[in-house]
């Protein structure tokens, strides 16, 4: 995995950030890259769905969402009692870890391509499904017993926030247009995907460099959490995939989804719904630690977990 170029772009960004280079990705370009990635992933999922959708998927989806809901419920008490964080921060961070990172997922797909491993195309549908319950659970945890929740604003942010909206929109377009219909768009959305991902990772590296430094100042607990939590979630993902009889590739992707922490959808939603939480903590942990951890350590480890379980569990 070490010489995979998209990951090297991330390191280049980190280096630029640490060296205080004047390299900056303009914010409008960041927005454009993220719109591209979200749409492209949605489209790809939709096309796969059009090729073979069936009822079993619905059941699988329900199971995957339920198992995924464990993650914030494990993270919250860890943060609250082991980490002695306040309720709002614990809930907000739990929501970030329950939710998923589209970019980490993409790196997982890239990893499978390198390993020449197949996977279920409809994984992307699960990606979309997983995004939502974690945010709701996070808010419930934050508000449990006190204060009122602006549910309207939160649900609006969740469903019509850019991330979910573009993922779902791409999914629907891909499904309706089908492989044939999408084909003229392939040269933009699929052929350029990996290159755009590389540029996005460059920017992520720039941001992570700053975030990681912020976090170091906060003491070691959160840093430890940001590396242990994905291992726990990833393990749950491998088990769930095995229980559902997914392919080995599907197991890696599900583990990656569970293990990844959101830094696009969740921060925006939590800033609105749980404003008293400190966004520096959650973004710092998710982007400054967990994201690179998954890139360099997590994904190979989940792959090894999956291989081991599939060999012995068979």
């Amino acid at each position, binding site marked *: 995995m070490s010489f995979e170029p998209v990951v090297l772009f991330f390191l280049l960004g980190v280096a630029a950030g640490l060296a205080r280079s004047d390299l900056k990705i303009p*914010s*409008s370009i960041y*927005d454009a890259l993220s719109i591209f990635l979200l749409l492209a992933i949605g489209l790809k999922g939709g096309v796969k769905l059009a090729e073979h959708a069936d009822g079993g998927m619905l059941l699988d989806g329900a199971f995957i969402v339920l198992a995924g809901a464990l993650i914030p419920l494990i993270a919250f008490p860890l943060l609250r009692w082991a980490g002695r964080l306040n309720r709002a921060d614990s809930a907000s961070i739990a929501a970030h870890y329950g939710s998923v990172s589209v970019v980490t997922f993409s790196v997982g797909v890239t990893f499978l391509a390198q390993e020449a491993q197949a996977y279920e195309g409809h994984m992307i549908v699960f990606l979309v499904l997983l995004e939502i319950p974690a945010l709701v659970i996070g808010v419930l945890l934050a508000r449990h017993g006190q204060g009122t929740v602006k549910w309207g604003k939160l649900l609006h942010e969740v469903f019509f926030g850019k991330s979910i909206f573009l993922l779902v929109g791409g999914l629907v377009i891909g499904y309706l247009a089908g492989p044939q219909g999408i084909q003229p768009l392939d040269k933009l959305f699929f052929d350029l995907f990996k290159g755009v991902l590389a540029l996005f990772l460059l*920017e992520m590296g720039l941001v992570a460099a*700053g975030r990681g430094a*912020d976090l170091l100042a906060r003491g070691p607990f959160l840093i430890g959490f940001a590396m242990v939590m994905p291992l726990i979630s990833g393990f749950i993902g491998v088990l769930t995939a095995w229980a559902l009889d997914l392919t080995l590739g599907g197991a890696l992707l599900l583990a990656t989804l569970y293990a990844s922490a959101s830094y696009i959808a969740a921060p925006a939603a939590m*800033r609105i719904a749980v*404003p*008293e939480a400190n966004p*520096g903590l959650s973004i710092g942990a998710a982007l400054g630690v967990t994201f690179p951890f998954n890139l360099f350590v997590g994904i190979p480890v989940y792959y090894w977990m999956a291989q081991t379980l599939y060999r012995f569990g068979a």
Partner: protein
Amino acid sequence: MNTPNRLLLTIVCEAVLEPLLEAELPPLGVTGYTITDARGLGTHGRRSGAWRKEGNIRVDILCDPALAERVAEHLRREYEAHYGLLIFSSPVEVHSA
């Protein structure tokens, strides 16, 4: 033509609040405002504007003192506790109709 006694109320806050302000200002009586993108440093740390929602916005509202106070009070009540927020005003002379 010159209306004395008008204030320019300036609000600097997190960009994530823009849609909320757009919805809440008119009911308070605000009939006009001007928004620009900004970045900055404050008690909530550095806001680099590296991506849209992470930046600040600057909202300028030309209004009378009473409305300015009403807006400032609303923002203090709703947002000051948990969001990066700076509000100040200065008297200006208006030259357009």
